[in-house]
């Protein structure tokens, strides 16, 4: 097991994996140094004086739709009353924007079955690729998502200076990598895999923190030389191969260039409250009964990655489309997707689905609480972020993608005017993504398939 509980490492020890894979160097603060006294490495990012903390984006996903009657708050824009499902978020009232009435209209076009389209359109807002890749559980032939996802679009815009352009976390996402289990795309047909293993994530994200600067510089130089050479090989190869191969290889090559750029970035300026997260005694992160703990660990990692400014764009994917978790800790013995296909008049099932979504709201509340406890220049990490909790469906049993339940939290540094319930009468969900990109300085008023865009959502700012 690579992850070792902090405080037991010594300076020269390496974190070793199952095959003796040495990953990165230990934390200085384990040896008694505090973060503020440890030497900082890497170049300082450009930050204009007086600009304040950076804005971040965090996307949270949960599957299978909801029970709208138990999700939608009653009352008006500012005097709304929390519903059963959203009650766990009550203490964050002033920082929320509860969004009702958005439909995934883009799913009217293109191939795929309901869950495929739900998952593939959710953050891309455009048709899936045609193709012979997926037949699926009752599905048409479809390819992957057909365009860049909103998190990656924003990461392109703001992520060039951080160690990681973006981070994709997963909690027990299916071990089948397909259209149902991928929501982030760096481009058409280019899914980004969420990382299910919290210990691998810990090692990958935090291992350079307070590392020995000399050793780090050595590694950078070596990697630079090797990657330069590999780049050259790709370039020479590109000129000799056909169009489709060239495109395929180009995606790989651009991932390598991404790596090279990040090597140059180093760590930048780390936030004052940055410290390595404590994941506790290692657990089996794939055991279904450990799902609640895995969810929280990934949330902790994401929050600290944002706090340390190692990235400004992250997503936490809890399960996947058609997610079948048995929430035994809620007293359930049937899986989530199974419940989601019972009839509307089955009141016991409606309660079960409500309980599941209430539980997810509690996890969301945990996340917001962590973020709100990180102070940054007089505000909090939550204030400087916009967190978006979204679903692949509106309603599970008929696969409707209307009224997709969406909760936003945080104002992205004052951009959004929070504390309100917003009811949009069946507007396309592309408009939400336009609003999000505008918040980060991308002025386009379309995102995804243009014909489904009607401009940023009115009244959010």
């Amino acid at each position, binding site marked *: 097991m690579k992850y070792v509980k902090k405080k037991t490492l010594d300076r020269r020890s390496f974190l070793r994996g*199952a*095959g*003796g*894979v*040495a990953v990165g160097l230990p934390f200085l603060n384990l040896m008694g140094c505090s973060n503020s006294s440890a030497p900082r490495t890497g170049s300082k990012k450009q930050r204009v004086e007086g600009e304040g903390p950076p804005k971040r984006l965090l996307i949270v996903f949960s599957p299978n739709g909801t029970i709208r009657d138990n999700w939608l708050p009653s009352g008006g824009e500012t005097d709304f009353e929390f519903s059963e499902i959203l009650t766990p978020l009550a203490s964050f009232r002033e920082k929320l924007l509860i969004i009702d009435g958005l439909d995934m209209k883009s*799913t009217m076009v293109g191939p*795929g*079955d309901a869950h495929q389209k739900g998952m593939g359109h959710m953050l891309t807002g455009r048709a899936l690729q045609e193709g*012979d*890749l997926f*037949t699926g559980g*009752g599905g048409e032939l479809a*390819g*992957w998502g057909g365009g860049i996802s909103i998190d990656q679009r924003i990461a392109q815009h703001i992520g060039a200076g951080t160690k990681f*352009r973006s981070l*994709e976390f997963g909690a027990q996402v299916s*071990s089948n*990598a*397909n259209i149902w289990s991928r929501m982030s795309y*760096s481009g058409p047909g*280019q899914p980004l*895999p969420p*990382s299910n293993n919290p210990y*691998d994530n810990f090692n990958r994200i935090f291992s350079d923190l307070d590392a020995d600067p000399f050793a780090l510089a050595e590694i950078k*130089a*070596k990697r630079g*030389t*090797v990657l330069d*050479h*590999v780049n050259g*090989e790709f370039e020479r*190869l590109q000129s*000799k*191969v*056909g*169009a*489709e*191969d060239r495109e*395929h*290889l180009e*995606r*790989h090559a651009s*991932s*390598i260039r*991404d*790596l090279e750029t990040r090597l140059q970035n180093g760590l930048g300026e780390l936030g004052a409250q940055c410290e390595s997260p404590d994941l506790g005694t290692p657990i089996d992160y794939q055991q*279904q009964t450990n799902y609640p703990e895995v969810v929280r660990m990934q949330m902790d990692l994401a929050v600290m990655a944002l706090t340390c400014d190692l990235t400004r764009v992250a997503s936490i994917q809890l399960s996947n489309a058609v997610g079948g978790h*048995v929430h035994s800790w809620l007293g359930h013995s*049937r*899986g989530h997707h*199974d419940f989601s296909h*019972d*009839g*509307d*008049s089955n009141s016991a099932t409606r309660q079960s689905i409500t309980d599941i979504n209430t539980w997810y709201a509690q996890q969301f509340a945990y996340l917001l609480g962590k973020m709100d406890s990180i102070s940054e220049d007089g505000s909090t990490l939550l204030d400087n972020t916009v967190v978006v909790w979204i679903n692949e469906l509106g*309603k599970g*049993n*008929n*696969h409707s993608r*209307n009224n997709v339940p969406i909760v936003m939290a945080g104002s992205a540094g004052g951009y959004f005017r929070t504390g309100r319930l917003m009811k949009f009468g069946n507007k396309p969900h592309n408009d939400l993504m336009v609003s999000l990109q505008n918040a980060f300085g991308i002025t386009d008023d379309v995102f995804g398939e243009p014909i489904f865009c009607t401009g940023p959502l009115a009244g959010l700012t």
Partner: protein
Amino acid sequence: MHIALTFSLLLGLNYACGADADIGEEETPTIEEGLADANVAEAVFRRLTRMEYNNTIRDLLGDTSDPSSIFPIDEETLSFDNNARGQNVSPLLAESYLTVSETLAANADLSAYLGCSSDSQQTCANDFVRDVGKRAYRRPLTESEVQSLLDVIAWGEESHDFETGLRLGLQAMLQSPHFLYRIEEGQGAPSESGVIMLTAYEIASRLSYLFWNSMPDQALFDAAEQGLLDTREGILAQAERMIADPRAKEMMAHFYRQWLHLDEVDRLQKDTSIFPGFNSNIARLLRKETETLIDFVIWEQDHDIREIFHTSRTFRNGALRDFYLEAGPEGDEFLPMGLDPNQRAGILSHGSILATQAKVNQGSPIHRGLFVREQLFCHIMPPPPDEFSIVIPDLDPNLSTRERFSKHREDPACAGCHQIMDPIGFGFENFDGVGRYRDTENGLPIDASGELTVTDVDGPFVGALGLAEKLLVSEDVQNCVVAQAFRFGYGRGEGEDDQQTLEDLRIEFAAIGGGLRGLFLAMTQTDAFLYRRKSN
């Protein structure tokens, strides 16, 4: 016997036109001669999957540390993990390639090249690049490729030492597109329709990855160099050598595990208050039952693969006897035994598949029907209706499964598809959600009558044996096996330009008696294997 049959039939294939044709009277064209008429769909270069990466590293460096386990999982398309078009190298994967190559290079045994005295280091570096590089890229390096790697080694030597230089050179090789992808530049001029021949080294890689999911061995490299892969016969001879190797058995298991979704068995979760005695250990044993039987049919018997759906033979041990609550052997060892033909027949009545194609707390005629449709008949089911006026019927625990799902048949919005799936699944009603046999459900006697439609073996049947008898003789099923093997073996879905290959394989498969061994051998003699279409 089978092998000789394969050989001569394949060679005569393109020219046997009917009862009057004399097979073998005309010469089968050489690979070069066949180029003009060859047809094959466009394909993209195949990147090593996690399994292929591990195997290749094992054979290249002798490293068995399972390095690809930290890679993101392979994209799964059309059931398989090796569809080239579905593959994507995300920044996370690129980073994983980097960190893993550093570890592998650090641990590699380079003693053969490190023992050089300082004045012969240049020679050692040269040898290192040419020898290791040729095996890593699966072909001799060009002079400029050699020089480029020597430059990396020189940088490492100057900034640190000779050993560092060599290890950096190895890192560079392991991240090269020529290592990670099976790059095929082909040879010679393309045909009028844009098809080209492959080099001997490229054929060698196609053979080794098809049969062993790994890089060519020394014998294959030698065969390539000696021109033994320039003919169909030579290629077949190597294929026959390779399919006799234990690594081919591993490859075949990887194929059928994905085809039949057996890779899902170990992860199954069941409601143990309804299914006492089911646990992850039993799940593993159930999978072993099925895999032992399938291996027996493929390797020991070399029979028509459809027999796995019909045979009354299975392999169980004492723990499974206790689980199934049926007569069976004692002890831990898996031993052959006979299934009760009144109850079970073939792998569709094994706990492995019955439990996977089911829900947490009950069986599922829909899952089982869909499984037969998609995996055995290669039928693509249309999606459930997209509008939101559907009301899903509630479950009445006092009704039988068949009655509960009657709404599927009554509502026209549902019936279109469910009429194609459910009636197949109802044939399995004698089995609960973990594969145990039952005569009643909720006190009501089981009705295990089912029906097949839209196939070449349509009609009603009763129970597992009834369905098995149809599957055994279905040409649709046999042709579907060809399609599944095509997708797995060639790493892509069938394209329009693959019709000749598919036709050849279907005919050959039937002619040799429907055994998978012969099918995989036949896969080395097709247009899809011997040629490539030059993409624009």
